[in-house]
């Protein structure tokens, strides 16, 4: 039964149904109101229901149309490193300061590519740190310490 479905459509539809259901159910906690005086919950309830219905439709269109080509495998290394860099940046920018955070972030994101050697990544990180500090901190006067309080400054 499942094999007859397009997995991509099924998953996409599932995501839409879940998201729609979340918004619609959460909207019930707010005042829904009447069409004349709509409350904060009216639109999200309506749109959430529409989204869930569209999700069922999307899953349905995949019926009898199993995916023919196999998608490329995701680059787990890329996902972990890139998303990790974004979280690292947010979590440490105040504490560590601009220069160390940018250097580490640049190095780690460069390593997300299998084609980059650690040496190339380090060189790139030095270059990007200089460039970003020049543009954002010196040029645009961004209010952020060069080295943050965690480093005893």
């Amino acid at each position: 039964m499942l094999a007859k479905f397009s997995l991509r459509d099924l998953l996409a539809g599932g995501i839409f149904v879940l998201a729609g259901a979340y918004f619609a159910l959460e909207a019930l906690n707010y005042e829904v109101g009447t069409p004349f005086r709509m409350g904060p919950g009216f639109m999200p309830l309506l749109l959430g229901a529409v989204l869930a219905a569209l999700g069922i439709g999307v899953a349905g269109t995949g019926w009898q149309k199993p995916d023919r080509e196999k998608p490329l495998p995701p680059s787990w290394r890329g996902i972990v490193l890139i998303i990790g860099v974004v979280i690292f940046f947010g979590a440490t920018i105040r504490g560590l300061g601009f220069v160390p955070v940018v250097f580490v972030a640049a190095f780690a994101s460069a390593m997300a590519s299998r084609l980059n050697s650690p040496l190339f990544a380090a060189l790139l990180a030095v270059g990007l740190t200089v460039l970003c500090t020049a543009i954002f901190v010196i040029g645009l006067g961004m209010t952020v310490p060069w080295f943050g309080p965690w480093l005893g400054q």
Partner: protein
Amino acid sequence: MDIIGFLGLGFSVALDPINILYCFIGVLLGTLVGVLPGIGPTATIAMLLPITFSLSPAAALIMLAGIYYGAQYGGSTTAILINLPGESSSAVTAIDGYQMAKNGRAGHALATAALGSFFAGTVGTLLLAFFAPPLARAALNFGAPEYFALIVLGLLVSIALAHGSILKALAMIVLGLLLGMVGQDIYTGTPRFTFGIRELYSGLNFVSVAVGIFGVAEILRNLENEKGRDVMVKSVSNLWLGKEEFKRIIAPVIRGTALGSVLGILPGGGHILASFASYSAEKRLSKNPAEFGHGAIEGVAGPESANNAAAQTSFIPLMTLGIPAHPVMALMVGAFILQGITPGPNVINDQPALFWGIIASMWIGNLLLVMLNLPLIGLWVKMLTIPYRALFPAIVLFACIGCYSINQNIFDVFAIGFFGIVGYVLIRLGCEPAPLLLGFVLGPLLEEHLRRAMIISRGDPMIFLERPISATLLGLALLAVLIAVLPSIRRKRKEVFVEED
């Protein structure tokens, strides 16, 4: 004041040395991202939005606009030289432009693209100058029902022009609309979908959403399949067109400009559609259609003019109605708002210097682009050799730093990561990200106008059909969806968009 007077005012703003400088930076950056792989104008403008915060409104908007139409020029350079369209709208240019380059006529192809684009840009800018004021005047009479209908039209037409599944595009719009509702309700102040997080009370930061979906998700996508690219043409010579070629491109350029100007106003990927439409028109009108696909100069001239004209006229709905026609224009709305200006019909009267200054700067920008692109083509050819693996770390960093610098809010940075993942998963599942961003930007407006219209009508939805303008707009929206799902058109859409993937 008449149009000459207004344009005079515009040029006095645009020719201010500071504004020329920012216009130059804008078109330079635009060409750069058009040429460089894996980064488009949407992500670039999103990343640079925070930087423009410290500039004057005119300088900020002139620069951001320059990035957008500059990218159209740069995109054609990569299309011609390495058969990789830098921008989706240059996909058609690659067909014949690359063949010309292979035959040693790269210089001719590039010159044709630049001259055609310049002509189209000039005409598009003039159209904007002539049509914006009357449209803005008409829009001043628009009430909530008309605006609601207009937004619905904009959203639905954008899916008719998108490629891929229409149901998925619809679902992405609705998801975008819902995400736009996160934050405090405009009328009652009730916080919605905030998980009790204070940072979410003012809504999701749309720079984070845009950078996550168009920047980070795209990087994750590109990391799946890493490969270098070959630059076949190492040097370009012979940029001057002969008399014979000049004659051949005149008609296609004019036709392309006309097509592009009209289609550019449509919401969605007007400029993409314009270049495809122009290509097939030229092929049909040509005396020897067999030459198409093997280096027909008309196949470069028409589409390039069309996409540039469309890039220019797509500013019309934004400047007159405040309604963005596609994601880049949605970001421009954000730029206006960051500067404390609500885009819409009032801008032309309240800020005439800004309005006409932006329009005049577009012509100057187009002139700068011709100068940048033809004599300096050697520089851009060198740029083509920068590998993607050296570029994407810079994109990640600029995204994080840019988002953080808007409000010094680390939550905005985490949001990039979240939307990067969400965007990546959805793109992998065959959902286009553009409708989501459009929905996200228009969501709050849609809700506001709907609620206001329903209060005016005391809860009677017939108000949308009783007022002639809103009824017409909604009728057009319905028509757009019907046409898009018609079987014959569906097949055509598949043919048209198949080149893009």
